[in-house]
């Protein structure tokens, strides 16, 4: 349906939402920042593919990639990426008690317990990964 004005038809009244509507309030900005953490997640996934490809091409390609990743711009980028990933982890785990309802003996496990369980899983997964890659 056309939204232009026509005779005998009430004029449409729609406020246009500005593109940067989410900059006005901290909660909105934080929401968009949380959604944009997915960019850091995609970056890590793609860089893992690049690592695997370099591994397949042999030691020289592997060393070249890692020399590139040790340059200051790459290190600065990954400091930012790690910060964004931590923001993803924290916001994700804090949503978990709202998404996961655990019933134990007919009663719902309190949010704090569900959150603590997720933090424990995070710690175990992180330590396990650091140990495997040591």
């Amino acid at each position, binding site marked *: 349906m056309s939204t232009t004005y026509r005779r005998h038809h009430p004029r449409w009244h729609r406020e246009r*939402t500005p*593109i940067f*509507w*989410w900059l006005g309030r901290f909660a909105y900005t934080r929401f*968009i920042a949380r*959604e*944009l953490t*997915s*960019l*850091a*997640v*995609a970056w*890590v*996934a*793609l*860089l*893992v*593919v690049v*690592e*695997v*490809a370099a*591994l*397949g091409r042999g*030691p020289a390609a*592997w*060393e070249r990639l*890692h020399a590139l*990743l*040790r340059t200051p711009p*790459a*290190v600065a980028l*990954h*400091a930012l*990426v*790690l910060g964004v*990933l*931590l923001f*993803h*982890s924290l916001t*994700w*785990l804090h949503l978990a008690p709202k*998404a996961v309802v655990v019933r134990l003996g007919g009663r719902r496990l309190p949010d704090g317990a569900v959150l603590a369980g997720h933090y424990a*899983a*995070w710690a175990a*997964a*992180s*330590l396990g*990964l*650091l140990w*495997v*890659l040591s």
Partner: protein
Amino acid sequence: MTSARRRSPEPFLWLLFSSGGMLAALLMPALAWRLWLAPGLGLAEPLAFERAAALLSSPLARLGVALVVALALFHWAHRFRFTLYDGLQLSHLWGLIATVCYGGAAIGSAAAAWALLALP
């Protein structure tokens, strides 16, 4: 009104989003620290080629890496799609955005599978 409703792919896409988000939350900070930031800051030795090759010599490890990469990419696709819809007011481009996001994730997953299968 028919009783047979079309099945929507959204629950399945949400499942990919959700499992990818959980894997990323649990694994990626430690991974980014160990592989890239700590060696870059001189706080850890870079992962040796031989060590990485040994770790990825088992089919199970390769499958695990492929799974994490694919789910992380579909997590991105789903979340970024709705960020573009809502954040930038682009809901009129929903078809194009969905194609680019999920298509990109599928291409990235295929690249991961290809790179893992090409390992000696």
